[in-house]
């Protein structure tokens, strides 16, 4: 099956939705976990926030790459 931009869009949407939902639910129900400092003395709240912002950009780039129109043979 040839993947269209719409198919890729839906896949990437759910790939992003899962961590975003987890982030929101963790903040709502286990905000204490967000105070952990797993890397370089920076807490999970900031690491996950940066992760969601940078992750959105990387997914957007990948989507743009995958949705490039195929090169035409002259």
């Amino acid at each position, binding site marked *: 099956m040839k993947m269209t931009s*719409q198919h890729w869009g839906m896949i990437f949407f759910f790939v992003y939705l899962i961590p975003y939902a987890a982030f929101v639910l963790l*903040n709502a129900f286990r905000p204490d976990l967000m105070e952990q400092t797993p890397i370089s*003395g920076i*807490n999970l*709240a900031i690491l996950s*926030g*940066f992760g*969601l912002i940078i992750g959105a950009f990387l997914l957007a780039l990948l*989507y743009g790459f995958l*949705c490039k129109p195929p090169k035409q043979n002259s």
Partner: protein
Amino acid sequence: MLYTPSLIAVIIFFAFVGLTLGLSFYLARGAKSSQGYFAAHGQIPWFINGIAFAGDYLSAASFLGICGMIAFYGYDGFLYSIGYLAGWIVALFVIAEPIKRLGKFTFADALDAKFNSRGIKFVAGISTLVVSIFYLIPQMVGAGVLIQPLLGFPHWAGVLIVGTTVIIIVVTAGMVSTTWVQFLKGTLLVVFSTILTWMILDRGFDTSSTNYKGYTFQALHDITSPQTAPATITHPGGKTFDLVDTVATPFAGKPYLVYQQQGGNERLLFKADPTDSTTYLETQTISQTANLTFINNIPRGLGDNQANLQPVGHMARLPDGKTETGPLGPLQFLSTLQNSEVVLWGSEVIKEDDGTTHTIYYQKPTPGSQVLRPGETPTFKGIRSNDPFAKLDFISLMLALFCGTASLPHILIRYYTVKDAAAARKSTIVGIASIGFFYVLTLYIGLGAMTSGALDVTNSNMAAPLLARSFSELLFAMISAIAFTTVLGTVSGLILASAGAVAHDLVQSVGGIHLSDHEQVRLAKIASVVVGIIAILLGIIFEKMNVSYLVGWAFSLAASANLPSLVMLLFWKRTTKQGIIAAVTVGMISSLAWILLSADTYSKVYGLPADQALTPFSQPGIITIPLGFLTLIVVSLMTPRARELAIHQPGSSPAAS
């Protein structure tokens, strides 16, 4: 806090306004037709359009509201940044390409592409107007907030200047000028925020309690009881104060040490440090009588024998007993703050029988680990409680931010300014890059302002410009002028979206009036003037409202009214025009009703007790967005499928199944 107007700020501000107006007049010849006026002929290059997305989207709420919330409370403001950025995922992956293929000028065009229904045009047009006006109010209020320190004009003057400038921008060249103003604003905002962040990191932290104006807040140590407090203190400014019995003051029975100036009226209050009860920290008091305002018991003003609130914000303690850090890297900045102690400010209001009100702003040394965790603002503190409705309120807001971006009419019309679906996709990627980068910077700008010694304790919205002032007057002037263009760019987009809804959707499609191309543009210009005047009036009326809060409402409204129909139209073949009309109507009315009956509206707008509110929590999205989907499904199943119209755009395909 009273501000001294800055001449350099005035010059730069008027240079910016002149530049944007000159640009608009220059571009006016390119917007004579409706295609030019509403969609810039669909010829905006994708990269320009992507930056213009940032200029359109990064509103006063983002720049002033988020930075201010982070500066006053810490991490919680960053939650808005994350939610706002995440919303672009829906825009890129779900909405961008189909809406470009289906629409022409407005969001209603896309919804109506398969049905040619006046009912759809009507509800989509009304929804556009309602969402845009909710979004306009905080932008205009933000303009008024900025004008006071920048030019020394009253609030209404700021609203009037921005409103008039935007009306001229939109009337002269519609989407053409709006796009270039937004591009200019997006570029300046990102570039100068980067410069500001670099300066914050280069400055690092120090533990001095002296603000950027040279005023040092005093601390009294080793006080085990009020009786052990020093009878006399001398402030670094040279004034001497005597300890007085609080019984003779309005602060009897309150936990303050009260010192009265020898031979003068100034009165200083000290409050115990919550982390060390033997240390008392200097406070600032605003007293308001029927017609006079006093600061620390001295008439407020900038002249001799008058007093002004002092700028605040400093570190109480750094890791390893250091007094300063020197330049810090981006991650080092955050880890240092995590292990430090920051002085935040709280407030207490005391009312006297004669109506005099005393607001005491006191220092709250707070561990950095607490500043950088969620749940410290009044808005989000509920997530640290056991109240399920408070948690639902938070989830509901984050859902609305996620779903709202792709439903905002002024964002959606920007997809019609590029030539095809691929350009729409690429411009959204550029938008995500620039917007995401800016939102990362908001955390540094907010935290930098928190420790800048430049904050106004009475006004969180001024945090970013005042942070710039702690570096230099020139940077303050630039950042303030950019904040103004921030408002100009967003308001231009909102007014254009509203004008399109009136001229293209409501009058022409619903009223059944056929307009020539020229008449359509003229009507849109008239509608722009009317909406602009309404925005000016609302900006003046809502002066005291919180800027970022109203934007949250606009997101909830847009997500509830518009998103269910947009998504189902694209992904469910069984969608009918009746289903769309019902979903937009139910989503809009239910979210609006929920907002108007919520605890936040009761307390902040009506001035009524919050516990009298009829809804269990304030943010409607978690109820009203699913309700919109459910309404569309039920009504569509109950109504016959209409024969679909052919969609004539080259290379287009019908909605996917």
